[in-house]
């Protein structure tokens, strides 16, 4: 039995941060020394390569590997700065029909021979794309934002994962805005975990730096950025590795800010 952890990154609803999480988690795990491969199973709208800044290095895909027109090593794209991380595009965007559950299982079986982590970036939805991507997953991380529709779709996906025996299924709550949460303009962390009833692997705050880094093709976790999202992804990677890192508390984040403000004001008074 392989000890590789093959983890599906999925959400149900589109645009909640699956690809961003896959890229950042991939880098963070690699930086922590784990041999990691990210597999772009959302190849109809492939953009994991973009986020990782590897778009121009792709020559082959898993499709050619399985057709035996190239070796796995040729299709794997090693990350420029982080040698522990590789990207494998699942397929060519124009060949939507080819990837079936058995293909996915065959690819993952190959990857599990040489990697500690296989992260699968799943397409949105619960149709064939999702089912194929999920076919080889042992564990899953469900991404949601604190919005009613995203939580509803995440719940649906969790139900499907349960019937497939994927275990454990953990939760990442993305785009948390502490201020909106404390003003009760947004679902709270408890509201979300109350419905989804999953262990919370991490909270990622809404952070402009995510967008900046996405556009640059350099995931936040690549540098020692002190931005809240970069720290959050680092923490999530550590928790995946079994370390006990306390969760960020959105209300504390605010209090921290307010305390700092108060200090500033006091300095001015004196």
């Amino acid at each position, binding site marked *: 039995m392989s000890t590789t952890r093959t983890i599906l990154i999925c959400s149900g609803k589109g645009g909640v941060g699956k690809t961003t999480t896959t890229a950042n988690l991939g880098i963070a795990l690699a930086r922590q020394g784990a041999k990691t491969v990210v597999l772009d199973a959302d190849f109809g709208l492939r953009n994991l390569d973009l986020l990782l800044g590897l778009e121009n290095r792709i020559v082959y895909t898993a499709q050619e590997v399985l057709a035996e027109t190239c070796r796995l090593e040729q299709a794997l794209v090693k990350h420029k700065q982080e040698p522990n991380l590789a990207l494998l595009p699942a397929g060519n965007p124009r060949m939507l029909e080819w990837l079936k559950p058995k293909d996915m299982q065959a690819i993952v079986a190959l990857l599990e021979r040489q990697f500690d982590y296989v992260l699968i970036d799943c397409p949105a939805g619960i149709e064939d794309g999702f089912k194929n991507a999920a076919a080889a997953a042992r564990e899953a991380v469900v991404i949601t934002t604190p919005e*009613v529709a995203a939580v*509803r*779709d995440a*719940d*649906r996906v*969790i*139900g499907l994962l*349960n*019937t*497939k*025996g994927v275990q454990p299924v953990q939760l990442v709550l993305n785009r948390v805005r502490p201020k909106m949460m404390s003003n009760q303009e947004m679902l709270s962390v408890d509201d979300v975990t109350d*419905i989804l*009833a999953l262990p919370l692997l991490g909270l990622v705050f809404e952070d402009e730096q995510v967008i900046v880094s996405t556009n640059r093709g350099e995931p936040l976790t690549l540098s020692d950025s002190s931005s809240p999202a970069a720290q959050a992804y680092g923490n999530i990677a550590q928790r995946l590795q079994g370390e006990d890192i306390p969760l960020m508390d959105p209300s504390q984040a605010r209090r921290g800010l307010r305390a700092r403000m108060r200090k500033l004001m006091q300095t001015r008074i004196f």
Partner: protein
Amino acid sequence: MTLRLPDQRLDHWRDRLPDLLNRYSQPIVDLDCGDWMLNCSDLADLCAAVTEAGHQLGRITSRVPETIVSASALGLDASRSNTPSNTEDRPNPAVTGPSDLLFHHGTLRSGDHLQSDRSILLFGDVNPGARISSTADVLVWGRLRGVAHAGCEGSTTAKIVALQLRPLQLRIADVVARGPDDLPQVGLAEQAQLKDGVIAIEPAVIQSLQKR
């Protein structure tokens, strides 16, 4: 030869299956699920048990549409069976006890729909986006936050009971009500019943958990 799951009123299939499989001699098991309403994870368990016993699963027949749908969803060869119902020859329709109650363990998540022509006792939550409906009563040993329909074939005496009643929508017979906006009291089971044609919610009384 077809392997028939036991009569629901007598035994749970999970208890009897290992023994039934042991006594089954052919390599391919054609399974008659009778009146059992099986969801995807039940069927996955069934498949696993069959394989584990060294057999291979062949055709599945059932008289319950939900079971056929779940089986098809898992890619199994499923069709409607024409064997007589276990329950149609029910000696006395007034008989009480577990036979007119469907037990279901586990939370219904968004998109799930649990349906029965018996009263349902669910151990778990009904999440927003999930539905539970019964021709008789709906009893939720957990939080009801989705849509519940009791008496869905017109019984106006049917009721809905939940440990925490905070549904999106309640229906009894053909009366529809939106869920209450205010939070329910913690630790107080509530029930919904038709009173003068409207759905009224009140604290559940112990007696209401027993059959009428």
